[in-house]
C-alpha cells in the first residue's frame, strides 16, 4: 500500500512509530516518509491519530515505540534546534489571552532570533490587527495570528494541523495562496486536515489514517485515477440496468430513465467498459473522476463494511 517517497532525502521519516496513552491507542506502527519539497496531506477523521502524529514529530509527546527523524535529525524530547526550521500551526489555537497580538509576535520572534522576515507581509495579506488583545479576537482572527506565527520565519518544513479552521472562505483562499507560494519556494508541507478539498488543492501525496494506522499512502493523482469514477451513459435506445450489470468493477448501476444509466466504476475497468459500451448506440457518456472525498469515504466505507461483516461473524460464532 505504502509508496516510498520519490525524493532523495526524507524530511519526515517515521519507522514503527507508536503512541499509546496508557491503554488507549494514539497511533500504531506508523511508517511515514515525506520527501524534501513534497506536499503531503494527512487525512483522517477526528480521533484517528493525526494530531498525535504531529505532536510526536514535534517531540511534545513521547513515542511509546519506534523512531522518527525530521529534517534529517532524530526526534528527541529535548530537541530545540530542529524546531528553528519548522513552522507549526496547531489544530486548536491557544494563546495568552491577556496579551496583544503584537506582544505574541514579538515573544515568539524572541525565540527565533528576531522578527520574522515575512511578518509584515503576512499581517497585511491576512488583514490582521496586532494591536488588539487576544481575548478580544474572534476564532478566525486567532487563527490568523497562529498562521502568522507559524509562517513568518519562512520555515523549511510547514506542519499544519487544520490551518484554515475558523476562517471565512476568502481568508481560506488567501492562506492557501500563501502556502502554495511557500511550497513553490521550496518548503515541504505536511498538512493534516479533514477538509478534503484543501488537501486536494495543494497536496501531491496523501496518507489516510484510520484508528491510528496508516491505511493508504499514495500519490494523489494516482490515487484518484485508480479509485472511483462516476459514470453516466445515455443510450440512443431504451436500456435496463442489466446492460452494465455483471461487468467487473462496475457497481451501483441505476436506471435514471429509459435511456440513461449511472454507475460507479472502480479499479482499472475503464478500458473494458468503453469497449463494452462501443457495442451500443450512445448519445452521451460522462466519466467523472472521484473527488478525494469520495476516495476517503471509500476507505472508510470499506472498513465499515469489513467491521460489520466481522461483527456478524463474531455474532454467529
Amino acid at each position, binding site marked *: 500500500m505504502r509508496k516510498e517517497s520519490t525524493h532523495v532525502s526524507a524530511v519526515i521519516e517515521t519507522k514503527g512509530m507508536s503512541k499509546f496513552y496508557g491503554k488507549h491507542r494514539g497511533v500504531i506502527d506508523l511508517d511515514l516518509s515525506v520527501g524534501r519539497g513534497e506536499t503531503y496531506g494527512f487525512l483522517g477523521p477526528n480521533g484517528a491519530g493525526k494530531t498525535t502524529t504531529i*505532536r510526536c514529530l514535534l517531540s*511534545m509527546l513521547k513515542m511509546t515505540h519506534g523512531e522518527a527523524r525530521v529534517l534529517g535529525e532524530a526526534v528527541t524530547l*529535548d*530537541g530545540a534546534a530542529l524546531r528553528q526550521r*519548522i513552522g*507549526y500551526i496547531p489544530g486548536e489555537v*491557544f494563546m*495568552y489571552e491577556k496579551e496583544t497580538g503584537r506582544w505574541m509576535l514579538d515573544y515568539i520572534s*524572541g*525565540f527565533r532570533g528576531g522578527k520574522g522576515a515575512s511578518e509584515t507581509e503576512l499581517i497585511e495579506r491576512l488583514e490582521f490587527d496586532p494591536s488588539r488583545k487576544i481575548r478580544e479576537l474572534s476564532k478566525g482572527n486567532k487563527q490568523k495570528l497562529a498562521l502568522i506565527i507559524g509562517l513568518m520565519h519562512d520555515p523549511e518544513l510547514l506542519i499544519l494541523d487544520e490551518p484554515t479552521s475558523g476562517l471565512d472562505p476568502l481568508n481560506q483562499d488567501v492562506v492557501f495562496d500563501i502556502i502554495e507560494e511557500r511550497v513553490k519556494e521550496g518548503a515541504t508541507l505536511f498538512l493534516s486536515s479533514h477538509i478534503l478539498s484543501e488537501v486536494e488543492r495543494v497536496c501531491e501525496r496523501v496518507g489516510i489514517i484510520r484508528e491510528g494506522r496508516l491505511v493508504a499512502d499514495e500519490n494523489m493523482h494516482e490515487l484518484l485515477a485508480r479509485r472511483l469514477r462516476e459514470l453516466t451513459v445515455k443510450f440512443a435506445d431504451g436500456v435496463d440496468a442489466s446492460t452494465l450489470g455483471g461487468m467487473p468493477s462496475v457497481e451501483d448501476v441505476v436506471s435514471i430513465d429509459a435511456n440513461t444509466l449511472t454507475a460507479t466504476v472502480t479499479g482499472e475497468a475503464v478500458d473494458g467498459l468503453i469497449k463494452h459500451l462501443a457495442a451500443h448506440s450512445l448519445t452521451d457518456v460522462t466519466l467523472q473522476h472521484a473527488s478525494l472525498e469520495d476516495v476517503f469515504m471509500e476507505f472508510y466505507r470499506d472498513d465499515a463494511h469489513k467491521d460489520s461483516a466481522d461483527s456478524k461473524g463474531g455474532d454467529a460464532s
Partner: protein
Amino acid sequence: MSWNLFKGTMHQRRKPLFWFSFSLVAYSWMMVWFWPQMGGAEYAELAESMPPEMIALFGDAELSLASLGGYFQTEYLGLMWMVIVAAALIGYAAKMIAGEVNGGTMELLLSQPLSRSKFILTRMAGLVLQVLLLSAATFVPIQILGPGYDIELTAKVFWLLFGLGSLLMLAIGSFAFMVSALSRDGGRPTTLTSAVIAGMWIASFLADVSDFADALDPFNLLSYWEPGKVINNGALATNAWWVYAGVSVVCLVIAYIGFMRRDVA
C-alpha cells in the same frame, strides 16, 4: 536559560507579583507600626492570659508573645505571611507548567526553538527571583522602617530572616513546582500543595499541645520556621538551612526529570 522566556514569564506575572509584594510591604509596615502599642506590659498581660493552645495556634508555645520575636511570629510571620507567600508561589508554580499544558500554550512554546531543559530551568529561575522579591518585600520594610518604631534588628538577624524565609518559600514553591511539572491539571498543584501546607500547620499546632505529635516535627517543614527565635536570639538551628535547601533541591530535581520525560500536549 532562555532570556526571552524569562522576560515573558516576568511580564506575565507582573501584576500578581506586584500585588503580593505590595501586600507584604504594607503588612510588614503595619506590623512595625503596631509594635509600640503591642509590645508593652498590657500586651504581655493579655498574652499570658491566653490558653497555651491558642498561643500554639498562632506560633510557638515556648515564645513570649510580648517579645519582639514572639510578636512577629505570632501576628505575622507564623501565619498570615505564610498564607500570602504560599498563595503567591503556588499560583506561580501551578500556572507556569501545568497551567501552560492545560491551557494549551505549552504546545505553542515548545513548537518554537526552545528546549524543554531551557524551559524548566528558566521557570525555576523565575521561581527563585520571585522568592527573593517576596523576601525583600517582607524583611526590608521591617529593617528600614523598624528604627522609627523602636525596632532595631541587627544585620545578622536581618540576613538570617531573609535567608531562612527565602529558603522556606523556595521549599514550598519547589514542592508546588514539582507537582506542577508532573501533572497536566492546573488545579492539582494548588490543591495538593495547599493541603500539604495546611497539614503541616495543623501538625505544628498539634506538636505544641501534644507530646505524641512531636514525632511529626522532623518531617514538618514549618517546624523549622522559627523567626521569633531568630529575632530574639539572633540564631537558629543549623538543620533548618539543610532541610529547606534539601527539600528544594530534591523537588526541583524531580520536577526537572519528570518534565523532561513527560507528554506536554
